[in-house]
């Protein structure tokens, strides 16, 4: 059965006009249509990828630039293969730090936003200080964190937390405060308690905002982890990508440095995609209009 369908797909791919003209092969043309649309969707980005890396490789080859100044993609691949174990270990360490810090800031930021939104008075008095804290450059804070907590994973998690906390907090607060006035009146008129209004109305209504904050913060978490490792990392094999980048830079292992950087962006893109997919699933039951 499955095989038959596959054959049909192959067949209709080669004969698209024929399958469209016959109503009997409606199903088949639908499949073709699906495959074709998917292919068209990813085609531009795949082309761009090939063109970009191809041009990179070609230009550097023609210009004959030394790999330690500007490595070609092929140099990067070779460097990554040669240091496979180190790269994997570093990626794992960075991911652990980033995800741990991200999880902590998610929980704390959402809880704090809820507490702040319980009372206008609290929010008005606390929020300005949060804004001020947010403006302090993280690079200035990291040395203090290292002095207080020592170099190592704990400091890295704190750096990640600091960098990914505020977008979630701010977004959640905006979401909690933007509940439709008619909805609030409805709850008020049906004698809802403050607790009910928060949990049955304001938090669910804020979900799209919370999700937007999570999306911003999950990529920031990787930046935080790498900056943290760079400044507060631990030596040796346990260090993350930030550490590996420092070491590679001092040794002029530029191809490996590039490999580390690309791995970092690959990781954060992957986590971003996961967060996006999870949130889409969470929100799919409602807000269909607002999602688009």
């Amino acid at each position, binding site marked *: 059965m499955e095989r038959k369908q596959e054959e049909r797909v192959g067949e209709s791919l080669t004969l698209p006009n024929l399958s469209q003209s016959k109503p009997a092969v409606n199903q088949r043309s639908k499949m073709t249509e699906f495959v074709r649309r998917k292919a068209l969707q990813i085609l531009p980005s795949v082309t761009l990828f090939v063109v970009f890396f191809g041009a990179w490789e070609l230009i550097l080859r023609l210009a004959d630039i030394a790999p330690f100044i500007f490595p070609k993609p092929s140099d990067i691949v070779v460097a990554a293969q040669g240091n496979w174990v180190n790269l994997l270990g570093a990626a794992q360490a960075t991911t652990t730090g980033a995800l741990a810090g991200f999880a902590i800031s998610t929980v704390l930021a959402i809880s704090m936003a809820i507490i702040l939104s319980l009372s206008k008075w609290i929010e008005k008095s606390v929020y300005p200080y949060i804004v001020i804290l947010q403006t302090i450059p993280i690079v200035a804070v990291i040395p203090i964190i290292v002095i207080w907590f020592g170099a190592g994973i704990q400091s890295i998690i704190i750096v990640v937390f600091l960098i990914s906390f505020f977008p979630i907090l701010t977004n959640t607060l905006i979401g909690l405060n933007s509940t439709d006035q*008619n909805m609030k009146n409805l709850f008020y*008129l*049906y*004698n809802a308690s403050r607790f009910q209004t928060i949990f*049955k*109305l304001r938090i669910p209504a804020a979900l799209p905002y919370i999700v937007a904050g999570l999306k911003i913060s999950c990529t920031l978490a990787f930046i935080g982890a790498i900056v943290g490792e760079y400044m507060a990392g631990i030596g040796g094999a346990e260090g993350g990508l930030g550490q590996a980048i420092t070491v590679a830079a001092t040794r002029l292992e530029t191809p490996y440095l590039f490999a580390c950087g690309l791995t970092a962006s690959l990781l954060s893109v992957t986590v971003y995609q996961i967060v996006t997919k999870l949130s889409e699933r969470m929100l799919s*039951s*409602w807000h269909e209009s607002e999602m688009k």
Partner: protein
Amino acid sequence: MERQIMTRISSQAEAAAATGIDRHHPQNLVELKNIDKVYPNGTVAVERANLDIAENEFFCFVGPSGCGKSTIFNMITGLTEHTGGELSVLGTESKEARKENEIAFVFQEPTLLPWNNLLENVSLPLKLRKVPKKQRHEEGERVLELVGLKDYTKSLPSQLSGGMKMRVSIARALISRPKLLLMDEPFGALDEFTRQSLQDELLRIWSQDQRMTVLFITHNVFEAVYLSSQVVVMTPSPGRISDVIQIDEPFPRGENFRVAPSFSQYVQSVTSSLEH
């Protein structure tokens, strides 16, 4: 015509007998005595409004926008306080009255929770009162059936048309079998066909209930005449109740009434009263 009047009288008498209330000396659900409302910014929204609202009536409030219709509703529901006169709702203050769960509301927007299915949406008032799930779902199914949506219990609001959403909103209001139903321009955003069929449905539900009083805001004179037993005419600056016109046409009403000479007479008298 004469026969219709006869049936109206007899059905009234039956209704009165059934509910144990004498229609001619009913207990007032809402009483406004010299009610003033001045907003903090100095706007005089309502001035010296007097009105008695009895049980089992259908009151329509008509008037141009800004004449204080919503303000009167907000005072009755306790969303805002009156600044002068005496207001009694269900024999007490508006905020106390609301706690008895005898008052329900329908706004111009359907105000449904987009993340809840229809059954959860219509049973929200019971959920907020912590009524057990089984009971509130039974009631939810009852009211969804009442508005013709019993096959949609698991649907989400985003899957519905504007008219259907408004039906859900009405069902939610009916779930606690209210004595007083306040509707603020509920059909204002609907097309004419949907509006007329919802008018008929609302009248059907109201006459079946035999107890509920509906207060209905509209700026559509035709709608007001078609629906109500009494039309409250309001004029702006300052907001005043200028007239209360009784519509002596038997229920149930249908297409016949919309084209009857008496209908246009009523429309004319409401319109001329609006112009004063």
